[in-house]
């Protein structure tokens, strides 16, 4: 039998579904159609000019890295935590590292390494600097989202040993991070757990995605809190009780 809470939510879903009738304004519809029909022909596959801006990007990034390291004292930045003034420099250097990467596979590897640093920052913040906890959680989430986005791009590429290795590494790291996040969550007050819960959710998504690589099961994800079966015997899907368990102690 459907629980009252379920029915409420079902009604709510039906209520918002009426917005499916929303359609594009007529002016947009006609204007855009005309502009598409009049647009120049489809270009041939893009070839990068030998000395174009794109080709110069790695060189520019290298110059920026060098300048930043020399000018602002890289060691202070390297040990900074999210929220520190020097952290911006650390991130700028990391951005440059991503720009320097030769392709998306190398970029994924770089971003995975950076997400590893962010979880270390988060652990340091929890252990030694509670004030940095919120920015550290945000930065970690942002790092994982960057991994997630790059992983989606790499998954679209044809299979190569380097690509598969990078995906496998991302899968292994996401499993390791979920375990570390679960360990951290137990040491946090309730209010601070929401960010960790989201981080676990995103990491689980990264793990699920990286395991879609044909022919591999991926690294096992850290054990999570078992889902409580509903009265019907089927897995519960009530909000907060359904879906993949967050793995946060005391939370669904």
């Amino acid at each position, binding site marked *: 039998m459907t629980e009252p809470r379920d029915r409420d939510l079902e009604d709510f*879903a039906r209520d918002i579904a009426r917005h499916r009738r929303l359609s*594009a304004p007529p002016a947009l519809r006609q204007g855009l159609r005309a502009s598409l029909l009049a647009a120049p022909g489809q270009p041939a*596959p893009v070839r990068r000019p030998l000395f174009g801006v794109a080709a110069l990007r790695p060189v520019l990034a290298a110059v920026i890295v060098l300048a930043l390291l020399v000018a602002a004292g890289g060691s202070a930045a390297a040990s900074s935590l999210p929220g520190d003034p020097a952290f911006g420099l650390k991130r700028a250097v990391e951005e440059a590292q991503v720009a320097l990467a030769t392709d998306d596979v190398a970029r994924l590897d770089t971003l995975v390494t950076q997400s590893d640093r962010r979880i270390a920052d988060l652990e340091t913040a929890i252990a030694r600097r509670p004030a940095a906890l919120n920015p550290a959680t945000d930065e970690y989430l942002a790092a994982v989202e960057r991994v997630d986005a790059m992983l989606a791009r790499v998954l679209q590429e044809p299979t190569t040993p380097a690509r598969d290795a990078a995906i496998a590494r991302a899968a292994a790291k996401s499993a390791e991070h979920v375990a570390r996040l679960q360990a951290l969550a137990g040491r946090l007050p309730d209010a601070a757990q929401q960010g960790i819960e989201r981080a676990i959710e995103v990491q689980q998504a990264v793990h699920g995605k990286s395991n879609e690589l044909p022919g591999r099961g991926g690294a096992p994800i850290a054990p999570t809190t078992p889902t409580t079966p509903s009265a019907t015997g089927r897995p519960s899907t009530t909000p907060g009780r359904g879906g993949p368990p967050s793995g946060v102690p005391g939370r669904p």
Partner: protein
Amino acid sequence: MHAEIGRDRSAEVNERRPPSDKPDDEATLARHAAAGDRRAFAALYDRHLDAVYRYAFFRLRTDAEAEDVTSEVFHRALVTMPRYEPRRPFLAFLYTIARNIVADRLRRQRPQASFEDAFAHPTDAPGPEDTATAMDDARRLRRAIRRLNPLQQEIVVLRFLEDRSTKEIAAITGKNENTIRGIQMRGLAALREILRGEGIVR
């Protein structure tokens, strides 16, 4: 049960879709469009414009942004058509472009998002020709959706406003179906709480 919400309905919707919406018909159009047939591309545009517009509408702050992004999606799709993989549903291809453009925009506007969200954007105010309650409701819903986390926003919009199946959303977002189900229900419940907090739903 929650995970079932919309699942049966989406099957009904699929059955109700016009014959021209058959996947093979769509694949043929997409193949022609990829080969440079502009009329085939226009047919795909006619078919999917509203879906792309709705996605942009509920993911962005203003009507104007939604229109800009919709326009950018189709122009980008036109340019990248030669690289389109015909086995993939065309709408999934469009959503992928749309979500990348939306993500870029949100990243750029993040520092001001909380401030902007707190107040209705000037262009959100109903104009003289646009006083329909439905549009006002849709804009209220949009403001509430923007208070969800980005992943919840994306999945709630695709599932409950675009009527995409969990499987389709998994293909679009690259996440697994169980993750999608969990997020869609938590997102829906969070959205209801936000609207309740504003006295919009009981």
